[in-house]
């Protein structure tokens, strides 16, 4: 659960934020729980995206990806919103299975890992095809529910934490001291990204880690930790590695108040708009975009192709059934291009290339 929302918002979902989310809905009036779009083919499977909410940029983009794929095949498209409520998430899936008689392809970001099991079982029983992302129990595998449980997709923080560290070192000329801002210590993506940073440090003896602080995915905490570092290390700070964009951008503001923004490179992770803009301005050295547009569209495409017989899930290898997706590393070189194709306009993806971003079978420790 934590893992999922962290990547979207740059910080973990807490109980309080759930309540705030609920308050948000109460404040706006009643959001329709099911937003549906009519397709033109009657026997075409209904396409279903089940996500947490539509009020954060991550899931809003996810939904746009789903709608774009549905449009490309002319199928009816339904968005289910859990609002952080597991029971609602499962009940909505069962309702849509009953409504369509199982003739649907579902792409779901389960609210919490345990939710995946009852959802997969319900889909198997109804004959629907399902793809899960981010959250599922470790011992629940797609190949145990052939052919209905088509695939599970996740992302590993290690290679991207490392890629950002390398981008940072490169912009520092390969030597000097860095400081690093981490996410919540017990948080899986925070642990993975930090592990990536440590790998990169081991391979680059010219770079010294002056200090690692936990800023809990919080902009404010990141700003204050950076302020203290400016006192402690002063000019020894050659670069700042942050485990997400929000903390990285806050570090830049601390540098700016010190007259040093743009002089000390900073990296983040998540690929939010402000970070891409900061890269274009030369204040940030890099970020990683998870591309929720791809997650929302391609997850559906994989389930849809399995449902319509384009491929047989049972015959696919395990690294197509439980795989890590591929993040997009953004640095100064491709920031403008990324901005133009992904932020300024709606991205265009080849929905036929369903395995194009599969980068290895998921490993469990």
């Amino acid at each position: 659960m934590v893992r999922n929302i962290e990547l979207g918002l740059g910080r973990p979902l807490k109980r309080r934020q759930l309540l705030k989310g609920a308050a948000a809905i109460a404040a706006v009036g009643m959001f329709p729980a099911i937003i549906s779009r009519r397709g033109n083919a009657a026997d075409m499977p209904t396409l279903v995206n089940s996500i947490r909410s539509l009020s954060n940029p991550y899931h809003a983009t996810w939904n746009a990806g789903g709608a774009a794929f549905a449009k490309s095949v002319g199928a009816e498209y339904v968005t289910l919103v859990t609002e952080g409520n597991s029971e609602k998430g499962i009940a909505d899936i069962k309702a849509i299975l009953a409504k369509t008689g199982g003739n649907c392809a579902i792409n779901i970001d389960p609210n919490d890992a345990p939710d995946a099991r009852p959802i997969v079982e319900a889909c198997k029983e109804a004959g629907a095809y399902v793809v899960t992302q981010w959250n599922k129990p470790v011992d629940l595998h797609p190949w145990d529910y052939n052919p209905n449980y088509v695939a599970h997709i996740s992302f590993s923080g290690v290679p991207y934490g490392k890629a950002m560290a390398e981008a940072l070192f490169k912009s520092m000329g390969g030597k000097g001291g860095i400081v690093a801002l981490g996410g919540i210590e017990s948080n899986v993506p925070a642990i993975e990204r930090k592990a990536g940073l440590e790998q990169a440090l081991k391979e680059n003896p010219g770079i010294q880690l002056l200090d690692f602080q936990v800023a809990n995915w919080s902009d404010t905490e990141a700003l204050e930790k950076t302020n203290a570092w400016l006192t402690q290390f002063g000019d020894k700070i050659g670069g700042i590695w942050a485990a997400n964009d929000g903390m990285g951008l806050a570090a830049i503001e601390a540098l700016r108040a010190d007259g040093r923004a743009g002089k000390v490179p900073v990296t983040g992770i998540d690929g939010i708009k402000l970070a891409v803009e900061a890269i274009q301005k030369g204040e940030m050295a890099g970020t990683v975009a998870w591309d929720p547009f791809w997650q929302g569209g391609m997850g559906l495409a994989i389930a849809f192709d399995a449902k319509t017989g384009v491929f047989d899930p049972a015959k696919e290898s395990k690294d197509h059934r439980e795989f890590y997706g591929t993040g997009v590393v953004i640095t100064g070189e491709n920031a403008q291009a990324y901005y133009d194709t992904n932020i300024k306009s709606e991205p265009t993806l080849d929905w036929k290339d369903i395995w194009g971003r599969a980068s290895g079978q998921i490993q469990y420790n």
Partner: protein
Amino acid sequence: MRIASWAPVIVLLLLCAIISVINPNFLSFGNMVRISQSAMIPLVLGIGATFIIIMGSIDLSVEGVLTLAAVVLSMLVLNGENANDYGLFAVAAVLIVGAGVGFINGLINVRLKVPSFMTTLGTWFIGVGIANALLGGMATRINDPWIRGLAIERFWGFPWGVWVALLCLLIALIIQNYTRLGRHVYALGGGEELAALSGISVARVRIAAFTIAGVFYAVGGILAAAQLGLGNAQIGNGRLFTTITAVVVGGTSLSGGQGSVLQTVVGVLIVVVLSNGMVLMGVPPSVQIGVQGLMIIAAVALSINRKLMKIIK
């Protein structure tokens, strides 16, 4: 009683002494500026909350008002998302929003007789909820040079935001010491029935206090938006904890009637110096939360001490 009420100041001086022995950089002018930057927002928030806590109530809407203020500001001044550029009018609008939420807090508390804890818990969520709905989860970059200048431009070596916070402190001191409202707030905290019997309009004082607190939180929102250069629905996260801790650590009693805005200044400095100092002293991140927890317990212990002293006297 006199000595006990100086306890927070002694704690602060001791803290500064320990940190500067371990890392002399702590006392550098640059670090003083950075501490003042970190303190300006908690100070403004703490000032607002002090009035409410002296009154014997509690205000949990700090994060709600701050977030709403920051988001509304980011959408009205020159920004990266829309064509608005209302400058100072936007600041005025934000202060009115803060006053409005505070006024509603007071009104619900007094007229519907909902305890302040629940009332302000509700407005906290509503504030964050509206902010979330306004931005749809996105962050808005602030480009207004005046707003950004609060954090970046300096006067006598300190950012303008620090001077704004000091101006707020001055205004709060005047309200506390030289107005009828200030005295009535203490009277309510000391004993509401007695205050009512002596002719004070309890309802009016409560509503006024909550409204003023709301304005201070809105100023905090403006400063937070200026500091981070953006408005988003998560900008207030964690502020309530710091605010209440600072007020209580400063020696203002949660049971009401005792405390002052100046004590909150000391409390804010203790909290800010501690978090700055823990990084300077190289305290491992996993231990830092624990140290903050210890500080809260110490603060409560201090306030119990003071009461004992009073009884002895």
